[in-house]
Every structure is written in structure tokens, then in C-alpha cells.
């Protein structure tokens, strides 16, 4: 009876392993196939021609510029909030946290609609801006605003937990050694949190680069001013598939490198 049950569990174990293996490889296959398909669609020569086309070059340039500016603004606006939420326990902190996290789960179309209603010609803020001759919708600025809106949670969440991970005693020690709160932040807290913050910055940049829905609704789709890479993929898909695929490949390769880099940075931070 003993041997019987041992055999049973042995067979059961093999079966479990086989099923797990099928599921794991099945999933990896499912993720890899579509991405691999992109690379089989164009020859290297076609890729070069497509990526050098005006629509692709405009989109690449615009995406790089807007995503960089968005990321810088997110860091400037988000760092104080992340630090305060990490260090100060105030009433309503959870509400503020939820609010800053919201764009992660919100459909980008909701974000686009909200931005349009707020900053549009007849919008809540847009009307007042119009008095000064400022019109945001369908401008490059609108692209940046959309990107900030959807990508800011990636930085703020990460920044908050990086600041929380900095032992308060370091800051206290700095203060007793004669450095004020600002000096302490720049000489102690920031350098210690730096690698974790960098992960957040890279993720934010990647998310801004991939922004599509909100941009389309709030900024429109004009080559050279608001047509970023995701929008250009959507547009050229109907005219020149090679350009769409070339841009898609650029985004896939970039995103893969970003996540790998972030893993490397955070892994190094832990060890």
C-alpha cells in the first residue's frame, strides 16, 4: 500500500510538471508570437526605407521630444508630492494617493475626454485660457499634457516607495550634523533613493512614449505637431503598412530594453 501511494504521488508529480510546463510555454508562446510576427513582416531593407519616411521620422522626433518633456515635468511636479506622501501622515493621504494612481486604471479615452472638457475651447479652464489667446487642444502642448496625465502615476508611485525606503535616521543624522531640510533632501535622501527613482523615470518615459488614446482625443492626429509614434502606427497602417510595422518594431525593442534596464537597476539596488 505504501509503495502504491508513493508511485501515485510520483506519477502525480510528473503530471503536474507536464501541465505546468504546457501552461508556461503556452503563455510565453502567446506573448512571443505576435511580437515575432512583427519582425517577420518586413525585410531589413524595407525597415530602413520605412523608418526614413517623413511620417515615421516626424513621429519618432515628436515622440522623443514630447515624452522627454513630459517626463521632466512629471519629475518636477511629482517629486514633492511623492516625498510628502512618503514622510508626512496627514488626513486624506489615501485620497490623494488614490487620485494620483487613478490614471493607471482609467481608460485613456476617459482621460482624453476629461482633458478636452477641461482645457477645450469651451472647457472649464479652456475658456479662461482663451481670454489670453491660449488654445491647448490639437497642439503639441496637448500631447504633452495627455502624456503627463497618463504617465505621472508610474513615477509618483515608484518615487513614494523609494523615499519610504530611505531610513529616516539618515535624514535625522544629516540635520544634527548641521544640514537644513533642503540640503538634507538633495545630499542624502535623493542620492540614496536615486536608483529606485531612475526606474520610475524610465517607466514614466516609456508610458508617455506609448500614450495613444488620450492624445488622439485631446491633441488630435496631425503629422509633425501631434502625431506621435502610436498615432502614426494607427494612421499609416491604412496607407503604408511597412511604416506602421517599422515604428512598432522600434517601440517593441525600446520597451523591452526599458523593462530590462529597470530590472537591472532595481536588482542592483537590492544587492
Amino acid at each position: 500500500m505504501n509503495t502504491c501511494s508513493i508511485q501515485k504521488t510520483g506519477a502525480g508529480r510528473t503530471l503536474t510538471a507536464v501541465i505546468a510546463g504546457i501552461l508556461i510555454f503556452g503563455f510565453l508562446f502567446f506573448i512571443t508570437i505576435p511580437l515575432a510576427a512583427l519582425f517577420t513582416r518586413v525585410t531589413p531593407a524595407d525597415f530602413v526605407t520605412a523608418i526614413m519616411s517623413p511620417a515615421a521620422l516626424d513621429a519618432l522626433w515628436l515622440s522623443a521630444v514630447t515624452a522627454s518633456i513630459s517626463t521632466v515635468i512629471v519629475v518636477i511636479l511629482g517629486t514633492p508630492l511623492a516625498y510628502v506622501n512618503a514622510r508626512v501622515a496627514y488626513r486624506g493621504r489615501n485620497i490623494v494617493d488614490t487620485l494620483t494612481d487613478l490614471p493607471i486604471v482609467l481608460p485613456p479615452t476617459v482621460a482624453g475626454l476629461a482633458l478636452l472638457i477641461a482645457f477645450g475651447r469651451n472647457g472649464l479652464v479652456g475658456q479662461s485660457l482663451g481670454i489670453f489667446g491660449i488654445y491647448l487642444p490639437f497642439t503639441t502642448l496637448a500631447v504633452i499634457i495627455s502624456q503627463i496625465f497618463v504617465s505621472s502615476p508610474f513615477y509618483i508611485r515608484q518615487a513614494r516607495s523609494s523615499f519610504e525606503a530611505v531610513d529616516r535616521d539618515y535624514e535625522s543624522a544629516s540635520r544634527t550634523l548641521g544640514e537644513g531640510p533642503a540640503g538634507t533632501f538633495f545630499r542624502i535622501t535623493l542620492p540614496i533613493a536615486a536608483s529606485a527613482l531612475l526606474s520610475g523615470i524610465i517607466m514614466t518615459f516609456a508610458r508617455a512614449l506609448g500614450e495613444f488614446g488620450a492624445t488622439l482625443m485631446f491633441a488630435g492626429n496631425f503629422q509633425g505637431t501631434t502625431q506621435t509614434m502610436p498615432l502614426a502606427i494607427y494612421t499609416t497602417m491604412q496607407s503604408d503598412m511597412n511604416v506602421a510595422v517599422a515604428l512598432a518594431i522600434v517601440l517593441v525593442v525600446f520597451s523591452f530594453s526599458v523593462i530590462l534596464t529597470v530590472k537591472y537597476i532595481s536588482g542592483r539596488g537590492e544587492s
Partner: protein
Amino acid sequence: MLKSSFKSVLRDFTLDVGELNVGDGKTLALIGENGAGKSTVLKILSGLIRPASGRIVLNGRVLCDIEQGVFVAPEDRNIGYMFQNYALFPHMTVAENIAYGLKARKMPQEEIDERVRELCERMGIEGIMNERVTRLSGGQRQRTALARAIAPRPGLLLLDEPLAALDVRTQEQMRRELASVIRTEGIPCIIVTHSIVDALAVADSMAVIDNGKIVAAGSPEEVIHNPSHGFVSSFAENLNLFRGEVLVENGGTVCVDIAGVRVRAVTTLSGTVSVGIRPEELIISREKFQSSAANAFRGRITSIEDNGSYAYVYADIGITLAAAITRQSISRLDLKVGDEVTITFKATAVQVFV
């Protein structure tokens, strides 16, 4: 000279420090159990926590007077603080850590370099000046943290459990080094500890804090030998603290006569002294055994007090000594109250102080 008196409401109790003063060049040991409020006292003195009420005056300068609305920020108090975990800045080298306070004070670079070098030489860490602090041993961290705290020549030095993070062997050496550094610097100093031995090694005066209140204060002698408070006497009992006379036997061996029991010790003191033998240093055996330890006494077990992983075995050898041994040892030796045993300890295990 530090003069202070303050109150602060903590989660479990109110910290009420009626009066806490430290004279120029003097060292005060603040002892008490974990959670008694010791570290909070240091944080209030350094300005990291604002007390609910009270007044702190250091060398004639008012650092805090809640009633008058005076509260000087920690960076402007010039109070050195050594944290229990040392809080060495992990992204800096040993030298950069020590230089930190000097840079904050905008000292010229040559002077900073000179002061850092001088301190490193004094502490014996000049060889590791350019090491990242994450690579240091416990003793090296402690020396670096101490050097960093005293580098800006603070008006008051606060040490939070300076030896707690070290292993027992390093503790012995660092206790001596700490005492010597404190004396040579001449900075008034408050050292927080839960070890009476640490307190005795460095302190001129002692204050016992329990549940947020100072329950005993005075010279170490007064505090230990007039245990007006149950907490203090329980501290003293478990440490085998006695008063005795130093005698020099024929042949130059020093011993201390405690109520007729002669305990061999290593000391340069004479006359009436206090003696402390840590319970962990005592060895209990059924029979006398040959060893290098200078002290071996026969006596009877008077009580066994279970303390969790440790047990205190009290034996009467003319005086009652407490030995801390594991429960396994008790069952292995089958120790019972009334058994006759031998207690053995080295002469160097006997701490002698005035």
C-alpha cells in the same frame, strides 16, 4: 553645560523629564529598559522632536522654550548625535561621512581634510578612509559614526546605545575606546544604554528612566547602592553588584573582599570599591575543575529563576551570585535548589569601579 526640563506625549505614556542637567565635560548615562523613553529624550534634546512643553538651554543659549515660542532647528543646535544603527550615509566613504558636518558648516576644504585626517588617525581608521561605509565591520562603523558626530566639535554629544550593535568581544574594546574618546574630547555627553556596565564604564552621573519618568539620578554609586526604586534594584541584583575592599595578598595578587568572600580581580584602584560581575561570565559546575580562571567558589543554589531562553541560578557562596545559563544546561546538570555547586569565573570578568 546643559540644563533641560521638558514633557512630551508619547503613544503609551507621557515623557516627563523634570530636570536633566549635564555639567561641562561630564558624562551622564541615561539607563532604562527598551521603550522607557530614552531615545525620545535624545531626539528632543537634538531638536528632532518638538516637546509639548519645556526648556532646553545649552551653554547659556536657549535652544527650546515652548512657552516663549523658541525652537531652534536641529541643524542650528550644534549637538552631535550618534544613532543606535549609526546611520552612516551609505552612498559616501568613511572620510565623506566624517566631513559631512564640516561641509555643512562651510569650513574651508583644507581645514576639513585636516580635521578628518586627525580624527581618523585618533580612531585608528585612517586605513579605511576611502572605503564605502557599507563594507565596514561593526567596530569600524562605530568609530566612523563617533568621529562623524564629534568632528564639528559639538556643544553636546548624544550617544544612543553606542555598543548595542556590536558583538560581545568588540563591545569590550569599544567600551574602553569610547570612554577614552569622551574624556579627551571634554564634550558634555549623554549616553543612552540599557547596560549598567556600559554606564559605569563611561559615566560621571546616572539617571534611570522608567515609563517616561526619571526615577533615580545621581552619581553611579548613589544610584546603584541606594536603590530607591524597584526597577533600579532589580537591575543591580541581576548584575552581581557589590561593595568591597581592595586587598593586596602576599605575592601581589589583587582581590576584593566582599563580606568576607575574596574575589580575585584586575584593578589599579584601592580602598572601598564597587564590583560588578556579569551573570553571563559565571560558570556553574557540579565539581571543582582545574582551569585558568582565578575564582572558584563552592556554594548552594538558593533559587532558580526562569527567564525564557535564559535562567538565573542564584547560589550562596557567602554572598549571593546570579549566574545566567541556558535551560538546557540546567537540565543537563540536573540543577535543583539546595544542590552544592562550584562557581568559576576569571579575574578579568570582575569589573571594579569607584
